[in-house]
């Protein structure tokens, strides 16, 4: 997602002189189009994420639209207080771009696995949270969020080619996208692991189970109305996220179910265990956390069977 996202940002910056891109010394083979096109609006601040957020706060107060860029864990965990006391508390339009939601940095290990970034951002008020499912949706989300006056967190994947079938790059602030209809259950997915959810839904049809699939990229504003409309039609809702089940999409859907008196059962598929020393690539780690299409199918079938 990062390549198309940054290319779109480069284009939009041609027409909007407020845009500044700051990086914490990361983005090889991704940030160059912006740096080449707008060298006077590109700063590599060095390995200093706190200062990067502070500078962005100062730029935004003066009328700029700063984007800060790093690996998702580095741009959320290290400068967390700077995000809170800067753009969040002061209601300034800083855009925080975190790369590698979930296990996308694979063998780089748990310091690079963004499995709590959405929870961290959700714990703060007044920051929009966008976690696209593919690169087409990431580009649309960038455009649709352009006018938001406060801070935005973009949780992007590294995959620049995979497309979630049926999504067609759609995105609306505060909306969910229902891309597959089904009456037996609803799979609700966030981030690039959504493609596993779509594949799982296809497999489930072979077992006679009709699963709807919805994408939640606008994590905040929360797509409450869309989620209610979807969940009230099915007996089972299954959340799918390469993220801790605490504080992320699973928690969001649990809140919606509980607060809107919905009667669907809830199965949260996501990271439930503590950090492991076991290494592997994104697919391996997703599978280890039961987020592969096969693991999702098994969990759904077990849940349907015991209904």
């Amino acid at each position, binding site marked *: 997602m990062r390549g198309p996202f940054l290319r779109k940002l480069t284009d939009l910056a041609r027409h909007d002189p407020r845009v*500044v891109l700051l990086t914490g010394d990361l983005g090889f083979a991704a940030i160059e189009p912006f740096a080449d096109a707008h060298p*006077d*609006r590109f*700063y590599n*601040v*060095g390995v*200093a994420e*706190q*200062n990067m*957020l*502070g*500078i*962005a*706060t*100062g*730029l*935004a*107060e*003066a*009328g*700029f639209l700063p984007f800060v860029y790093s690996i998702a864990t580095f741009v959320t965990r290290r400068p967390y*207080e*700077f995000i809170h*006391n*800067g753009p969040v*508390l*002061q209601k300034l339009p800083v855009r925080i771009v975190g790369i590698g939601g979930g296990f996308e940095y694979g063998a780089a290990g748990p310091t690079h696995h963004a499995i709590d970034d959405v929870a961290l951002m959700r714990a703060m008020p007044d920051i929009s949270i966008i976690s696209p499912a593919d690169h087409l949706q990431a580009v649309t989300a960038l455009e649709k969020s352009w006018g938001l006056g406060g801070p935005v967190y973009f949780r992007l994947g590294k995959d620049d080619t995979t497309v979630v079938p049926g999504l067609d790059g759609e995105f609306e602030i505060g909306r969910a996208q229902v891309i597959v209809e089904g009456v037996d259950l609803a799979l609700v997915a966030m981030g690039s692991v959504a493609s596993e959810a779509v594949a799982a839904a296809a497999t489930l049809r072979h077992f006679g189970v009709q699963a709807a699939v919805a994408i939640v990229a606008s994590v905040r504003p929360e797509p409450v109305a869309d989620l209610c409309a979807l969940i009230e039609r099915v007996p089972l809702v299954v959340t799918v996220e390469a993220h801790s089940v605490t504080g992320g999409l699973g928690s969001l859907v649990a809140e919606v179910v509980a607060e809107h008196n919905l009667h669907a059962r809830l199965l949260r598929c996501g990271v439930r265990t503590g950090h492991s020393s076991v290494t592997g690539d994104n697919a391996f780690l997703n599978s280890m956390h039961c987020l592969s299409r096969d693991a999702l199918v098994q969990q759904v079938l077990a849940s349907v069977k015991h209904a």
Partner: protein
Amino acid sequence: MTHAHSARTWAAQIRRIVLDESRRANVGHIGSSLSVADILAVLYSGVLRASGPDDPDRDRFVMSKGHAALALYTALHLRGWLSREEVAAYCADGSLLGVHPERAIAGIDFTTGSLGHGLAYAVGAALAARMQESSRRAFALLSDAECNEGSVWESVMFAAHHGLTNVVAIIDANGQQALGYTRDVLDLSPLAARFDAFGWQVASIDGHDSAQLFDAFTRPTVRPQVVVANTVFGHGVSFMERQIAWHYLPMSDMQYSEALRELEQQACADPSSVS
């Protein structure tokens, strides 16, 4: 009247209002506000350029040591941006004027309260000014103990690397922090030499001397500038001076009376400080 004389008048008024409002609100952080009274008086009486608090091309000021906000509110009042009634609501329920400054208040450019953030804001503000081809400057007032925070040095490195000559860091070097003296807690010395080694122009001055402060703030520079303002914590009230406890304590009525008496004696000794 010279600017130095005018600033001394402002500083005396800041100290008086700091005492009055701290007593009324029954809150502490008095020593820190007294420590920076002269610095703020010089800045707001004649250094910071702004046609008003909403002037987009105003010089920016960041009160990075946010716990001395009462002194800043008073300076904003003297500048004409806050009414005396608003300052009299310091720490009152429902008021915007808390112990730490909030951006919703006219004249407060950045919300602060947690140390180590403000210099980065000022560096961003200075970078913005350069990108907008404005001659405005950005000032940040830090405590010396705030330099314990690693983030301060991230900002110091960035400003030097990018040659931001329009940023001024002011260190309120009173040698004290929350639980002790800086030399005992985490020694910062030689502070001026450390900034110099990081590529900043250093002015180490008496932080209670209006003429020295004005000179330092208006000196031409080819590097980012730090003014190490050597100050006395609690300056002007003898029983508070250099006393750790006055980071926290509110005054009793008797202490308040004694503090006022001392300020009046100083005014008699320096008639130029009385308007």
